[in-house]
């Protein structure tokens, strides 16, 4: 069974079909990429998956369970986590706290326990903290855990955001343009990090503009154009496809229609 499956997902804003009839599957343990020119519906697609938008038609299944229209925080708690295209790290808290917030669903401390059994609650906190530090170690950020997130350089903030998403221990990690604003060196670090995540058993779905990055990281790529799935294949096939070239470079011939 596929980890995630969408069936004829459709979303329009006013008259614009942002996502038009997209069906796809993501298997356990894959790194899947999604590309497409600006406005082709990639971000809308991710927002549909994570419950920020509700589709007008179609279904999303996660491990066979229908999650269409489920609230965002519920979707996170059942194992889908994401990052954002425009960095959304919690700026005014420490690096470690960012991760701890990411572990919100994993730290089991109900409200009554905090007031009535404070010592037991504290113990749970401490354990959560240790686990959180392990996540920071993955991205080599452990030695900066007490720093305010806003004081990290941009590339590290992006890694931190991914770490934070990982901290909820998702089965599926969605990365929305993780390379935006990065320099080539930071991109290499990121590529390595993504492979590490996959090796640790998490399925990764990446939306990206930067072709060099996506071609080197993804095993399978889905191309969107004007809200529709245009094709899917491995990086070689995508690069060689004349249709994809046309999407990206435009038509050479005057096309009367």
């Amino acid at each position, binding site marked *: 069974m596929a980890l995630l499956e969408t069936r004829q997902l459709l979303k329009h*804003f006013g008259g614009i079909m942002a996502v038009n009839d997209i069906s796809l599957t993501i298997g356990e343990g894959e790194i899947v990429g999604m590309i497409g020119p600006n406005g082709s519906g990639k*971000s809308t697609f991710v*927002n549909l998956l994570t419950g*920020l*938008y509700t589709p007008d038609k179609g279904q999303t299944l996660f491990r066979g369970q229908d999650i269409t229209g489920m609230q965002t925080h519920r979707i996170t708690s059942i194992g889908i986590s994401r990052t*954002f295209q425009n960095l959304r790290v919690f700026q005014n808290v420490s690096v470690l706290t960012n991760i701890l917030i990411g572990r919100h669903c994993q730290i089991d401390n109900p409200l009554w326990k905090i007031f009535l059994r404070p010592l037991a609650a504290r113990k749970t906190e401490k354990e959560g903290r240790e686990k959180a530090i392990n996540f920071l170690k993955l991205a080599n950020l452990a030695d900066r855990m007490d720093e305010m997130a806003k004081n990290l350089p941009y590339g590290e903030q992006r890694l931190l955001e991914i770490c934070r998403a990982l901290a909820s221990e998702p089965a599926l990690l969605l990365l929305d343009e993780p390379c935006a604003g990065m320099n080539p060196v930071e991109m290499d670090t990121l590529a390595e990090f993504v492979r590490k995540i996959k090796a640790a058993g998490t399925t990764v779905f990446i939306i990206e503009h930067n072709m060099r990055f996506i071609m080197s990281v993804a095993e399978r790529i889905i191309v969107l154009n004007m809200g529709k799935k245009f094709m899917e294949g491995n990086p070689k096939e995508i690069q060689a496809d004349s249709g994809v070239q046309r999407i990206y470079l435009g038509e050479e011939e005057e096309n009367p229609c």
Partner: protein
Amino acid sequence: MLIEVLIVGVMVGAIYSLVTIGYSMVYGILKLMNFAHGDVYIFGALLCYTLLAQFHLNAILAVVLAAVAGGLLASLVEFIAYRRLRAAQHRMISMITALGAAYVIQNSSELKWGNQVQSFPSLFPADHIVIMGSQVSVTHIFTLIIAVVVIVAFNLFLKYHKAGKAILCVSEDIPTSSLMGIPINKTISVVYFLGGVFGVLGGVLYSASYNAISISMGFRGTIIAFTAAVIGGIGSMGGALIGGMILGLSENLISVYVSSSYKDPITFLILIGILLIRPTGILGRTEAGKV
């Protein structure tokens, strides 16, 4: 009886619309809750009161002077308390500075004029005419006419004058307006100025028609403007009119048929209801957010 209540209601509604227009315009451009609006309006009205009662100035001259002073004060507030915060700051910060500015103006006015209710001189003859069997005061008729004329004139200005069109464009999209060559800061100052002028006009008309003025009307003015703007759809001119009318009429009906001490709580309840049920107001548009 009912006719009279309705006419007074429409008059108060027209005044409220006048006060709301300036408020709503500011919100339309800067998305800023201008808490100082009512205090500017009461400052102007009190100034007008002094000019009339103490200096015995010609009524028209006094009103014009007070309105200009109110307009200048409004643009001064914008310059001092808001302009710095406009770039990339949280909206809440300017809300709080706006409140602070409101207190400064209110308190300064209080130091000058005290917090007692004072009797505002009449601007119009104290005659009555009979409409459909009811006595209606000439003051109310004149007030209504003035308010309507000003509102119509302003709408024509927005529609047909170059500067008016520029204001509308700035309220839609600031960066693009600057690409058209519209000076943004200047336009915003003008909007504040006009908002202050209309506010003071409204305040003067209101005080004159009730022959009373007091500092506490300032905060009420702000709330009225808020509520009317929200009812009609904040940022929209037509909405300001409708909102003002609804408020003026309902307020008078409540005062007469329920109790005047519940007229303000009910105004607030209307505000809460509108915010919960239709936060964009009757004519408002929904703004789509992008993630």
